[in-house]
């Protein structure tokens, strides 16, 4: 019977862990941390335009990148508008991609660092292989 209580207490602690961690780190009542990618990247979403509108890019940018990847790699069909090199003309990997992906605990699978093909530096288009 005691063992059942121990198991239940552990279960309750796991369930309540977000609240406990939040209380222990003194975050109660504070505004939660947010990724600082907008100011860091020097991008103002109200002024600067991306290839699609901001709301779409926030939720669905990975779809554009993935579709473009399939087109380039499998069908040798490159679309200048959605190529990943173009992202880096405005955004920096460290301050933009990484900041937000780390915050959300998501792997950006484009890059070497997380098992993809691309380096994190600005890419030189002349060095990429011919299709």
């Amino acid at each position: 019977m005691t063992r059942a209580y121990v198991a239940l207490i552990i279960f309750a602690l796991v369930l309540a862990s977000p609240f406990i961690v939040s209380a222990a780190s003194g975050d109660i009542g504070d505004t939660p941390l947010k990724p600082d990618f907008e100011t860091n990247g020097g991008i103002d979403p109200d002024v600067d335009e991306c290839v699609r509108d901001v709301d779409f890019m926030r939720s669905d940018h990975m779809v554009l990148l993935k579709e473009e990847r399939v087109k380039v790699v499998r069908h040798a069909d490159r679309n200048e508008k959605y190529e990943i090199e173009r992202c880096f003309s405005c955004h920096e990997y460290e301050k933009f991609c990484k900041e937000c992906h780390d915050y959300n605990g998501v792997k950006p699978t484009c890059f070497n660092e997380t098992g993809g093909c691309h380096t994190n530096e600005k890419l030189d288009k002349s060095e990429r292989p011919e299709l």
Partner: protein
Amino acid sequence: MSGLTIFFVIYAYVAILFFIAGFLYRIWKYASTPAPLKIPQTPAPVAAPGVARRMVAEVTLFKSLFNGNKIIWLFGYVFHLGLLVALLKHYRFAFDYSPSWLVYLTTFELYAGLIMLGGLMMLFLLRLVVDRTNFITVMTDYILLVLLIGIAGTGLLLKHFYRTDVTSVKEFVLGLVSFNPQEMPADAFFIIHITLVFLLLIYFPFSKLMHSGGIFFSPTRNQVDNARDKRLVTPWAAAPESIQIASNMTQEEG
């Protein structure tokens, strides 16, 4: 703050309160229910470590269900595995920092989601088509399955088809956790998803889902088979030794 956010913040706290208070109440009820008889199902362990091993096998492998019905075990087990991964991966939303094992876990999230949904649908189907199962099925069984199918389904849609901005979802959840509510993203599928989840949390303590806590209180599984070594006297039945001996004797005579 929008009306939608205010509604959902209150809804969230009510649901969490219901869940915690209800869960603890049910556990207290289980713990205080007398188990006057020594009824471990044989072959049963004869010492405490054996009971712990038996309980672990029960909780992690659903051993009794496996012995009883392989088909239900398969779909039930697959569903619970998917549910475990899905639950764990949602912890990314509730902590400032996501540990690397949690990020690694997201590699399987699509498969976890699919086996969860598939398992639930098969369990639903079994209830419809297997006569013996259908006979003992009551309305709440269907309601729970539909609720869980709805949650898994909207979760998968939210991840793979109708995406929402996860950053604002995380801000909303962190806001709830630190008691400083933030604006919630107003995407249809996100709203349906969390509505169903909070509904499940409220319904949980009243439902059959309490098997999650109740399994630890199964007398046939949590007792040591030592009836011949140690006399079982439940605290509420404890009486002076003389009375017990007397009553034993009358029973034997009768």
